């Protein structure tokens, strides 16, 4: 009986040891960067931000142009929509930058 108990205690210690080693191994194999948005290189990030900004303004120009043609309000809607487009572009860039900071490795290094 005592023998049995002792061996079960030994077993428990062994299992605990195994558990500790297993969790250490799992920890090690986890990716360093938090899962989520992570673009490969700085170049990718740069092109993304530039395109977001330009696209906002471009949409403003196109939308304003066609609305002006349609409603005959040349050039007022275009002027207004360029400003709104620029605002949307800046909003896009802010969102993209936020995603990069949240998903990228900045998050862990910055803390």
């Amino acid at each position, binding site marked *: 009986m005592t023998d049995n108990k002792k061996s079960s205690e030994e077993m428990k210690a062994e299992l605990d040891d195994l558990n500790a080693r297993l969790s250490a191994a799992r920890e090690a194999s986890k990716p360093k960067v938090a*899962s*989520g*948005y*992570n*673009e*490969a*290189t700085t*170049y*990718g990030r740069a*092109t*993304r931000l*530039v*395109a*977001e900004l*330009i*696209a*906002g303004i*471009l*949409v*403003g120009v196109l*939308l304003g142009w066609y609305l002006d043609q349609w409603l005959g309000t040349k050039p007022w809607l275009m002027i207004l*929509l360029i400003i*709104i*487009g620029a*605002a*949307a*572009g800046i*909003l*896009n860039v802010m969102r993209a930058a936020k*995603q990069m900071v949240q*998903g990228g490795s900045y998050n862990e290094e910055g803390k």
Partner: protein
Amino acid sequence: MAGPLEQFEIHSKVPIEVAGYDISITNSAISLAIALVILMVFMLGGMRKAALVPGRWQSSVEMCYEFIAKMLGDTAGHEAHQFFPFVFTLFMFILTANLMGMVPWLHLFTVTSHIAVTFALAFFIFIGVTILGFIKHGIGFLKFFVPGDAPLALLPLLVIIEIVSYLSRPISLSVRLFANMVAGHTMLQVFGGFVVSLAAAGGIFALGSVLPFAFIVALTGLELLVACLQAYVFAVLTCIYLNDALHMH
């Protein structure tokens, strides 16, 4: 000496006209078809045996699969896995088209250097994702355009800005890919022109042609990176848009 932008010109190879519309088979169409064939041979050939222990070819196919599967899961969550075939096809197609343009001597046409192609891709993603959002959330998807913590007086303006920002998605997606491809290929051609004209000048100038040539070698490496990177960025952004439609932030 061909001008640096001549490589992007579309020529009709087999002229066809149906009911007044010009639907000739162009160099662009041929390149699209070749990209499709290369892609199909690569994927089907790699999975032909489907061995438990993969060979080199099967391994590379599986690497592509796992890369995109992981990226999709990370950016758009588990729910988005039903869209895996779409994102995977998109990524592989753009990657093939981009890399095809990097093969020297064959003069394959880079289809992704045309905004018509990239915008068509981006526009269908945009439409599809919007429809998905409405299917998933019903009319509640419109809340996507209403920022949560805004003062009431500014709300109409902010909603307009949000809508313009949403509309800019297909443009930023397509312009980025197209601009990267055009810029890279134009730069290669320009420096190629320098090599030829310096070498033709003779004497001491001919020695100088080594410089732009070395630059071309470096640029080719960079362009290979850009080709892969832009395909990846395109796929990542598709995933982010899918995520927005599925989970509304």
